[in-house]
C-alpha cells in the first residue's frame, strides 16, 4: 500500500518560492488503479516524482508497504526505486538498442543470471503484447508500441507499484484506447497496482477505481470515480465531469429555465441512476403513484469502468406536494437527484 501523509513540496523558481504540493493525503490500495487528475502544472508529475524518489519533499511522509520513501540516503533510494516501475511521459527508449535490450536495461544492475534475465524480459514482453517485436529497433515502432516497451521496462522487475506519468497527452484517441486496455489487463490479469497521472477525465473514467483531483498543488477532491461522477462537489470536479460526459442541458431549455420557483412552474431535474438502483422501474412507479407526468428532455448511459450510470434531464409536472414526495421516494431508493431550475 502506498500512503502519503501531509506531503508538502516547495519549489524555487525565478518568481520566488511556491508550494508545488500542499498537504496531500493519499492512500493507494494494492491492486487498484488510482488516478491523479489535474491540469498542466497542478503537481501530478511532481507527486509521482516524489514517490519515485526523484525529488525530495519538504514535510510529511510517503510510505510504500510500511517502509518510508522520504529522506533516504542515496543507496537506499536506488533500492526504493527498483521496487517501483516508472513510466515517464515520453517513452524514452534508447535508439541504439533493440526492444529486448531496452527492456533488459532495467535488469542491468540487479545481478540476475543471464537465463533469469531472459525469462523476465520475455515475460514482460508477453504481458505488453510485444513478443514478436523483441528484435525491432524503437524507430520501427508506432508510438503506442513504444509506450508498451516503456511499460515492459517498468514491469520487468516485478515492481510492487507502477507509476505512470501522463502518457496519453502525446497519443491520438486510438492509441490512448489501446494503452488503456493494456492498463486494465495488467491490473486485472497480473494484479499490478497502478498510479496514473492524466489531465483527461476520459482516461480516469475508463480505467481508474479511485481518483484524486489536484489543482495548483492542492488535492481538491478524491474518492471513487463513480461517486465523483455522480455528484462532484467542487467546481473543478464539476468541470471535469462535464468535459467527459454529455451532461450539458440543451440550449433551448436553458433559455427557458428560471432559478426561482413560483406557483405556476415545474421543476427540471437531473436524475442519475446507477447499476443497483436501475434494477427496478422506480421512476415509473413514482410517476404512477404520485400522479405525475414526466417529460424526458435528455438521457444517456455513461460507462465508468464496469459501472453504468443512467443520466437524464427531465421535467416533472403534477401537484407541488406530489412532486416533493416523488423526489423523496426516488432519493430513498438510491437515485441522485438535482433540481436544475424551473420552467413554466
Amino acid at each position, binding site marked *: 500500500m502506498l500512503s502519503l501523509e501531509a506531503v508538502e513540496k516547495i519549489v524555487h523558481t525565478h518568481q520566488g518560492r511556491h508550494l508545488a504540493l500542499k498537504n496531500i493525503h493519499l492512500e493507494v490500495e494494492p491492486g487498484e488503479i488510482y488516478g491523479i487528475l489535474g491540469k498542466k502544472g497542478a503537481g501530478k508529475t511532481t507527486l509521482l516524482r516524489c514517490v519515485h524518489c526523484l525529488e525530495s519533499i519538504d514535510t510529511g511522509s510517503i510510505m510504500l508497504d510500511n517502509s518510508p520513501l522520504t529522506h533516504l540516503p542515496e543507496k537506499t533510494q536506488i533500492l526504493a526505486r527498483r521496487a517501483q516501475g516508472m513510466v515517464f511521459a515520453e517513452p524514452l527508449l534508447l535508439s541504439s538498442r533493440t526492444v529486448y535490450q531496452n527492456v533488459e536495461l532495467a535488469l*542491468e544492475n540487479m545481478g540476475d543470471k543471464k537465463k533469469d534475465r531472459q525469462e523476465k524480459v520475455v515475460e514482460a514482453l508477453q504481458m505488453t503484447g510485444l513478443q514478436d517485436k523483441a528484435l525491432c529497433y524503437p524507430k520501427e515502432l508506432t508510438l503506442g508500441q513504444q509506450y508498451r516497451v516503456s511499460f515492459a521496462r517498468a514491469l520487468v522487475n516485478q515492481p510492487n507499484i507502477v507509476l505512470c506519468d501522463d502518457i496519453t497527452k502525446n497519443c491520438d484517441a486510438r492509441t490512448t484506447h489501446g494503452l488503456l486496455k493494456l492498463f486494465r489487463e495488467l491490473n486485472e490479469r497480473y494484479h499490478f497496482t497502478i498510479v496514473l497521472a492524466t489531465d483527461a477525465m476520459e482516461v480516469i473514467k475508463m480505467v481508474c477505481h479511485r481518483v484524486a483531483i489536484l489543482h495548483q498543488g492542492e488535492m481538491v477532491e478524491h474518492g471513487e470515480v463513480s461517486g465523483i461522477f455522480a455528484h462532484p462537489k467542487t467546481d473543478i470536479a464539476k468541470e471535469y465531469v462535464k468535459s467527459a460526459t454529455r451532461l450539458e442541458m440543451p440550449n433551448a431549455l436553458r433559455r427557458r429555465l428560471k432559478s426561482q420557483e413560483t406557483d405556476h412552474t415545474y421543476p427540471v431535474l437531473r436524475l442519475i441512476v446507477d447499476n443497483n438502483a436501475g434494477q427496478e422501474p422506480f421512476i415509473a412507479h413514482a410517476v404512477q403513484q404520485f400522479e405525475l407526468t414526466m417529460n424526458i428532455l435528455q438521457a444517456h448511459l455513461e460507462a465508468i469502468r464496469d459501472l453504468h450510470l443512467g443520466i437524464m434531464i427531465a421535467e416533472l409536472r403534477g401537484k407541488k406536494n406530489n412532486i416533493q414526495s416523488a423526489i423523496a421516494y426516488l432519493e430513498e431508493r438510491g437515485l441522485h437527484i438535482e433540481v436544475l431550475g424551473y420552467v413554466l
Partner: protein
Amino acid sequence: MFYEMLHALEETLFMVLTAGILTLLIGIPFGIYLYLLSFDQKLWHKTIYRMLFTVTNLASTLPYFVLVILLIPLLRILFGTEASVSSAILTLALATIFPFSAEIQRALNALPIGYNDLARSLGFSRVRWVMKVSLKEVMPVILPRYAQQLNQLMGYSVIAGVFGAGGLGGLLIAKGYQNFEISYVVATVLLVFLLTQVIRLSVQYFTHDQSH
C-alpha cells in the same frame, strides 16, 4: 620517385593514424569527463570545469599553424627538435583532441533530458549510465565527427611538412614548392585527396552499419 612517394605516404599515414588513435583514446575520456564535470555542483569542481572548458574552447579555435609555433619550445625540450615525426604527432594530436572532446560533450548534452531521470529510475549512477548507455547512443553522431577530425589531421599533416616533419607535406614542400616539379605536386595532391575520400567513405560505411 615511386619510392620517395611510398616513403612519404608511409610517414603521413603513420602520423595521421597515431594522432587519430591518440585523439580517440584521450578525446573520448576527456569529453566524458567534461560532460560529467559540468553536472558537478561542488565549487572546486566547478572551477576546474570552467578552466578546462575555456582551455578546450581556446585550443579548438586555435589555427594549427599557430599551435605548432606556440609548442616549439616544448617540442625542443621533449624531442630536441620540432622537425621530427614524433613532434608532429604530438602537435597533430593536440590539435584534434580538444575539438573532438568538445564534440563528445556536445553530443552527450544533446541527448533528451529525460534520459537523466530514466537513468536514476533504473538505478544507474551517472558514470555507469554514460559508459553503458549514452556513449553507444551518441555513436551515430560521433563517428562522422571523428571522420572529420581524421580529414583535418590529413590537412594538418601536410602543414606539418612545412616544419620539417616529412611525409607527403614534406615532399610537396621540397619538390613541389622549392624545385617546382609539377609531377610531384600532382601525385601528392591526388594521394591526399584519395586518402581523405577513403577515410570519409569507410566511416560512412561504419556509421550506416550502426544506425539502423
